[in-house]
């Protein structure tokens, strides 16, 4: 004789709820405990995957004309940004739409490339592990752009907080090479009307 299994709805709901609770606690532990490491490892995986694809296009720099002879494909990774002062290393992609910014730092297509002698504009989300820490940057901190075609060093000059409509805060020129890093301000989720900007100037390449 087999015993008939009786479905206990209340117990089932309780088990599901407890499981859900444990999964949620696990997510929170992972997010808050390992967030920076996750960002770094995901970035590393993206870098390996994308570099493999992008290696097909070799970027060359004409140092006389101060111009790239070929440009990276839109949306592809072409550099890493390294800022030792805030322990930051992130991939830099050409373009800055939402999809691109979800992978790392985006290069505004209407700005110059590192080495071209003009304004380079890089945007990043203000999440932990992305550009949240640029708020801590101080004058003379070093920012390195390690591009596929060369390595470029910049020194932080100043920071500023501006309204998102203040385009004058983003001067695009080619008289002097400057780097502008920006993120939404203040930190947090949702639409922000202000931007935190870091202005840095070219301090030479790594051989100088």
């Amino acid at each position: 004789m087999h015993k008939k299994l009786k479905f206990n709805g209340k117990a089932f709901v309780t088990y599901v709820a407890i499981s859900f609770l444990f999964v949620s606690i696990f997510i929170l532990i992972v997010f808050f405990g390992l967030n920076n490491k996750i960002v770094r490892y995901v970035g590393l995986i993206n870098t390996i995957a994308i570099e493999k694809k992008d290696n097909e296009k070799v970027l060359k720099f004409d140092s006389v004309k101060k111009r790239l002879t070929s440009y990276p494909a839109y949306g592809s990774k072409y550099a890493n940004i390294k800022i030792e002062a805030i322990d930051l290393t992130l991939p830099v992609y050409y373009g800055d739409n939402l999809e691109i910014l979800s992978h790392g730092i985006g290069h505004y297509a209407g700005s110059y490339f590192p080495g071209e002698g003009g304004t380079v504009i890089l945007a990043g989300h203000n999440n932990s592990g992305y550009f949240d820490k640029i708020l801590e940057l101080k004058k003379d901190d070093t920012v390195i752009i390690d591009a596929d075609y060369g390595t470029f060093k910049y020194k932080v000059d100043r920071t500023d907080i501006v309204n998102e409509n203040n385009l004058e805060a983003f001067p695009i020129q080619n008289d002097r090479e400057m780097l502008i890093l920006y993120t939404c301000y203040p930190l947090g989720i949702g639409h922000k009307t202000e931007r935190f900007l870091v202005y840095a100037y070219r301090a030479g390449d790594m051989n100088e």
Partner: protein
Amino acid sequence: MKKFFVTFLVVNVLLGVLGVSAMSESKLLEKLSAKYNINGTTYQLRADDKVLAERYLNTNEVSSKDADYIASKIDEAIEIMKKSGEKDFTNFSKLPASLKKDLKKLVQDVASNTSVKATTAKGVVIIYNQDGTVFAEITGLVKNTGSNLNIIVPAAILVVALGAVVLVKNVKANA
């Protein structure tokens, strides 16, 4: 849509320039920075649009036939804008519907009859290289870089909080 007019100028001006093959680079840059006076207001390419235009020139080749066609469309566009009597062309979406239609048609003519391809969708203008890959997406300069925190995390916080409430209630009920 906002940047449609600007994009039209970028694409057209840079290609119009290419029609003059003997032009030196400095003259070319001069031409890219040219000012257009329409109904008393002067328009000029923004610095970031100029950067894009120069980059397009460096990476794409355009036949003189295409360049001539586009140059004629620039003249046509300026003529249409002058005849409209409008003074502010900085915001495409605020222009009269018939004028927008005429200008869009010119851009479509360029896209259909030359090797320069551009599309618009949800306010974003996408310009393509001649090999069909994306050259650039034209959106505003300043992007929304607020936290893109995944919805899972706030949901997890909510679930844990609810769990705690249920637990406390049960403990109280059994006490």
